[in-house]
């Protein structure tokens, strides 16, 4: 038999082995793995966020365009809810019992212990009646935050809208956003989101196992206060903007007005517009779908995304290049028999004026004159062939800001159309010449510009040779910081002396009895401009006017496009004149007031295209618009026979 005394060592060895097993496991969970350490942090540490107010936006005169309005989110902590009068709560916040259970279930799934949104954005009135009784609803609490409020209910496309972040926004911004944060989704709210959003405040709180707060983490050293978004000063003149929207009511089109010397956009009208307030709060989804379904697409930001052939309004640019190249001089005349033959193309002219020089050519918008200038440019001797001549011309036109985005501070700007000679070769084959592209002379053909680009051309002419990048926000923050690129002058390389004859022609267009836009002449102010009647492959011609005023030391450059409204002189020119007068004199003079009122009432809507999205009938007037089918009939009638606007 073995010595039993030795069994002592077996037992002692067993004790030591077991101790080593315990220590091994402890070493793993305490020293090797940091998983448990991190779990401990997430056990006790909660970040409580306070939401910042978004930055306020002012107009150029300091009037508030966007402010913040308090709203109240009803939150629930499911595990703290005890039995209560659910019907009463439902009645106060205006939901039904199934809705209550749906919301409660959703909140429970998200978290039992943390506050989750139960009902978003209660109004002040509901909040007031709820506040009194909140103690009767254990587990419910109210968190206040702010939403946007647009006191003037205008310029929807300019502002864009703000929305709660989606999962995609959260992923794209690498953790900056958390669910429940707001983000600008369109317009200025999107473009300047980083400036406007401000900074979330965070309080690091310690919580015990029963979810009772136990004070702040390391004495609040890591806590931050919410910081409101920066103030943003817009360049818009709210009065002019408002007038523009009223004038464009029941019409489709754009108005862009620019202060030439600074590039500041004074008015940014996109019609049809919408009230930006409908994109705030609970009705957002319904209203958004409603806007999406409207046939005239109010969500389109036409000033920067609408494509229009510039038409006759392009003629001054062509003339300026002609003058700079020396192929014409202001007194050179061309005979206009009422048409122009370019090879076997016949370009019609609206009138037979005989020998036409630059000034009259522009004032009367003579197609023959324009075609002659273009032909001369394309057939200059110094170029080996017309393709090279075209390329040279194209480069000069591009300097005017055509064919490329102007980089305005607004998302989704489109660049317009201007072909390179290679693109023409691709389209027409090797053998093309000026006769092939003669329609460019009158701003038609392979040329499209946004209303912003057209207004910018006017700013260039008003400045006699340069432009500042057009922009909608002129300064940011209390220090009124201005971006560098918005003070820099971009020259178009045309000598200042060449502008005067062109401006003479544009002055005549508005101010002399034979001018195309003479009916829109301003009392006491010399406005220079150019009408355009733009051929529209989809329907009636668009009415276009571009101009600036006053002639000397111009303060406003403007482009107006009214779709399907026919001649430039009928709608676009008078609208531009009212806008200019309003901006320059702060009022509309005497007899013109009646004209403005008349214009506001005009309905010029295109024939209704088939809706892209089928919608439920009740959504049509959700955006506060009248049923579009009725006005269309009248619109066509009016558009068929444009009435003379008023007599002097």
């Amino acid at each position, binding site marked *: 038999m073995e010595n039993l005394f030795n069994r002592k060592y077996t037992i002692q060895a067993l004790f030591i082995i077991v101790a080593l097993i315990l220590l091994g496991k*402890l070493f793993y969970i305490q020293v090797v793995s940091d998983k448990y350490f991190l779990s401990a942090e997430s056990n006790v540490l909660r970040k409580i966020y306070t939401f910042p107010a978004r930055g306020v936006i002012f107009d150029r005169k300091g009037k508030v365009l966007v402010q913040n309005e308090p709203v109240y989110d009803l939150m629930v902590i499911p595990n703290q809810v005890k039995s209560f009068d659910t019907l009463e709560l439902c009645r106060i916040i205006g939901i039904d019992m199934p809705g209550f259970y749906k919301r409660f279930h959703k909140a429970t799934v998200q978290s039992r212990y943390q506050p989750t949104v139960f009902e978003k954005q209660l109004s002040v009135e509901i909040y007031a009646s709820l506040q009194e009784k909140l103690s009767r609803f254990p587990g419910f609490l109210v968190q206040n935050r702010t939403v946007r409020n647009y006191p003037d209910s205008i310029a929807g496309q300019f502002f864009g809208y703000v929305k709660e972040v989606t999962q995609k926004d959260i992923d794209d911004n690498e953790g900056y956003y958390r669910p429940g944060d707001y983000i600008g989704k369109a317009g200025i709210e999107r473009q300047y989101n980083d400036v406007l959003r401000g900074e979330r405040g965070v309080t690091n709180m310690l919580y*015990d*196992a029963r979810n009772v707060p136990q004070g702040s983490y390391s004495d609040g050293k890591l806590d931050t206060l919410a910081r409101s978004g920066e103030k943003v000063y817009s360049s818009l003149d709210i009065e002019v903007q408002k007038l523009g929207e009223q004038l464009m009511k029941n019409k489709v089109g754009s108005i862009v007005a620019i202060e030439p010397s600074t590039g500041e956009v004074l008015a940014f009208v996109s019609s049809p517009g919408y009230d930006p307030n409908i994109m705030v709060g609970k009705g957002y989804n319904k209203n958004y779908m409603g806007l999406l379904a409207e046939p005239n697409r109010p969500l389109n930001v036409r000033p920067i995304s609408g494509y229009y052939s510039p038409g006759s309004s392009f003629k001054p640019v062509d003339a300026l290049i002609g003058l700079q190249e020396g192929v014409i001089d202001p007194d050179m005349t061309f005979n206009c028999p009422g048409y122009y033959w370019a090879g076997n193309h016949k370009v019609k002219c609206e009138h037979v004026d005989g020998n036409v020089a630059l000034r009259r050519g522009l004032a009367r918008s003579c197609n023959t004159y324009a075609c002659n200038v273009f032909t001369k440019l394309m057939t200059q001797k110094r170029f080996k062939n017309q393709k090279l001549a075209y390329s040279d011309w194209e480069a000069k036109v591009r300097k005017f800001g055509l064919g490329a985005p102007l980089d305005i501070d607004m998302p989704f700007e489109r660049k317009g159309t201007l072909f390179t000679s290679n693109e023409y070769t691709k389209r027409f084959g090797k053998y093309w010449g000026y006769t092939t592209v003669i329609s460019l002379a009158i701003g038609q053909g392979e040329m499209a510009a946004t209303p912003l680009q057209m207004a910018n051309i006017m700013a260039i002419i008003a400045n006699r040779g340069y432009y500042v990048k057009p922009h909608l926000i002129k300064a940011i923050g209390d220090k009124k910081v201005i971006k560098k690129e918005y003070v820099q002058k971009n020259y178009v390389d045309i000598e200042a002396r060449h502008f005067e004859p062109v401006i003479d022609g544009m002055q005549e267009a508005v101010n002399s009895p034979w001018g195309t836009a003479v009916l829109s002449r301003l009392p006491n102010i010399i406005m220079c401009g150019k009408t355009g009647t733009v051929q529209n492959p989809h329907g009636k011609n668009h009415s276009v006017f571009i101009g600036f005023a006053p002639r000397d030391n111009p303060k406003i450059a403007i482009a107006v496009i009214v779709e399907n409204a026919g001649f430039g002189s009928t709608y676009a020119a008078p609208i531009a004149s009212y806008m200019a007068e309003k901006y320059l004199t702060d009022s509309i003079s005497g007899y013109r007031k009646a004209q403005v009122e008349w214009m506001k009432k005009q309905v010029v809507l295109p024939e209704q295209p088939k809706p892209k999205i089928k919608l439920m009938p009740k959504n049509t007037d959700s955006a506060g618009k009248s049923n579009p089918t009725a006005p269309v009939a009248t619109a066509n009638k009016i558009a068929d026979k444009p009435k003379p606007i008023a007599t002097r």
Partner: protein
Amino acid sequence: MRAQQGNRFFFNVDWVTILIYVALCAIGFVNIFASIYNPENSAVFNFGSSYGRQLIFIITALVLGFTILLLDAQFFSVFSPIIYGGTIFLLFMVLVIGNKVAGNQAWIAIGSFKLQPAEFAKFGTALLLSRYISSFSPKFTEIKSIFFAAIIIGVPLLFIMLQPDTGSALVFLSFMFPLYREGLSGYFLLIFLGMIVLFVADFLLPIYLIILIILGIGGFFMYQNRKRQKVLFTVILATIIAIAYLFTVKLIYENVLQQHQRTRIEIMLGLKTDPKGAGYNVIQSKIAIGSGQAFGRGFLEGTQTKYGYVPEQSTDFIFSTIGEEWGFLGCFVVIGLYIFLLLRVINLAERQRSSFSRVYGYCVASIIFFHVFINIGMTIGIIPVIGIPLPFISYGGSSLWSFTVLLFIFLKLDSNRMGFI
């Protein structure tokens, strides 16, 4: 003569063990204080609070301990049947008049004080087992001796199972170690180990695979011993029993064990995670211990401890406080103290002249060992959640007193090792 005896008494008592004992009690008090500690309400020392009561328990336990040292050493040997009978009576009474706490009928309430007889049954059984071995010098190669020992251990075990208090019942398995020391075949330990391995394997592997493995191992030994008929027979029998056991386990597991016990076992084996339910304790305990990292967060700095994330933290899960606030270093010290205590008790037991003292010493070491292993193992998730206290450290009067009595009886016996019992 009396004075001389007094000197001898203090000279003979193993002060090192008492020092370790006091150290563990102090560690217990500090950590109970930390786990009860509420940062908002910490100004005054309060005897009404748990740590206040624990201080009273420690002081009374010391008084109790030194009283035991003053008793005659022979008292324990002589009165062991009566003490044993008394604890059995208490175990019986608890079933009759006991209070039900969390489904277990384990407490007898005497005024505001709650007595847990299972704690006292441990040293009652230890005393009687020692007395049996010292008086009858049984040979544990004989079935008869094993049977008597099994009766002594089995009766209190049965009563405790009826409460039911699985944790305390498991501790009675620790009596295998003294029996092993006194001559019980090592095979019992091996069989016991094999049973545990098979039990765990039953959950983790498909049953046919385990049978195949058993047959493989059995076959190997059968081939090895094919010439020796008697051994061959034993191996065949063992193989059959192993397979039968496998099925029995499944059967017992599904029909006898209660749902909460099944869940605990499944969580321990990693078959089930239930962070909000039964697994909550273990997960939170592991988080607390793990968050202590190498050197701990410091006294009263443990966030998990302070904010009550670990349930039962002052009693069964006191080790998680140690782990969080004192880190791996603290755990190492505590486990080191226990191991030092256990090895010392074993060494002291071996120097005894009387077999009563020796067997009793082994009982003491084994019981403490089982408690420490199961309790710490449970807090770090290598053993299912079994509610037994950590000796000398966990909050609670019954537990502290019974461990004190257990240990100090041995110290008394040891101080008297030159005398005869």
